[in-house]
């Protein structure tokens, strides 16, 4: 199945939780924020929020800025 991840198509074998996606991408969940279909996913909901075919996922972090 294909999702849109940070604006680009991304292939996944099957639906999975936000936690599982972050683990797969080797991203430290404590340092990012995740948006699923334009709604922020609270950290407490990472395990229960499931990403399905066609979903739009944004994973952001802090970078240098003024």
């Amino acid at each position: 199945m294909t999702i849109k991840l940070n604006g680009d198509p991304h292939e996944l074998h099957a639906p999975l939780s936000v936690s599982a996606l972050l683990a797969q991408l080797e991203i430290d969940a404590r340092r990012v924020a995740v948006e699923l279909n334009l709604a922020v996913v609270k950290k407490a909901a990472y395990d229960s929020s499931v990403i399905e075919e066609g979903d739009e996922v944004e994973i952001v972090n802090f970078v240098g800025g003024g």
Partner: protein
Amino acid sequence: MREGLTIAGRTFTSRLIVGTGKYPSHAIMKAAHLASGADMVTVAVRRVDISRKTESLLDYIDTSQIFLLPNTAACYTADDAIRTARLGREAGMSNWVKLEVIGDEQTLFPDNEGLLEATRVLVKEGFVVLPYTNDDPVMCRKLADAGAAAVMPLGAPIGSGLGIQNPNNIRIIKEQATVPVIVDAGVGTASDAAVAMELGADGVLMNTAIAGADDPVMMAGAMKLAVEAGRMAYLAGRIPRKSYASASSPLDGVIGSRAR
């Protein structure tokens, strides 16, 4: 003379707020932060680079000492700024945001309508909103009325280093303000920061003036001193400006032809 800067009930030791962008390296940024004495720094919210592992900015910021203020830089609509603010809150676990809604790519001047709209929405959602705004007293009043915790008028365009372009407006904004006034953007060198503080600003926020200096760490130290000096001069109360001289030395007892 160690009175802190209090915004929304939170007191910061330093009246200097600095950015985290455009430094030659993260290590230099960290050293500059230390030299600046700042205990609040701005950060931007951006997509994680999925394709490669990059060093985390947060490895170079001691968040037990330094408060992170996420910005909404490069947002051109209220909706984008609101979305970015919500993500920043989740990434940083604080409800503070430096709100930017930009209206023009060349000047990076704020879009007043979008800024006001985003301020109202975010205040309602419980954010502590610090809007980056024009040096316009009316706009600053509207933002404060909308619930902004501080107003952050620009001294000059972002990254321009032109210094305070409209000192009288900054003074008026401060005189009328019901919330702290932080001069944000436009500082080029230490004297600019001192001028902002002498005008009565409660604080100064800068990034490029430090990060882009030949020696960012030394400039950070200069900015620390300038902000403190400007604040002290403001509190001390400067003398009025006069057109003609008034002698500093006594006129009595002068020897020579003008003796009396």
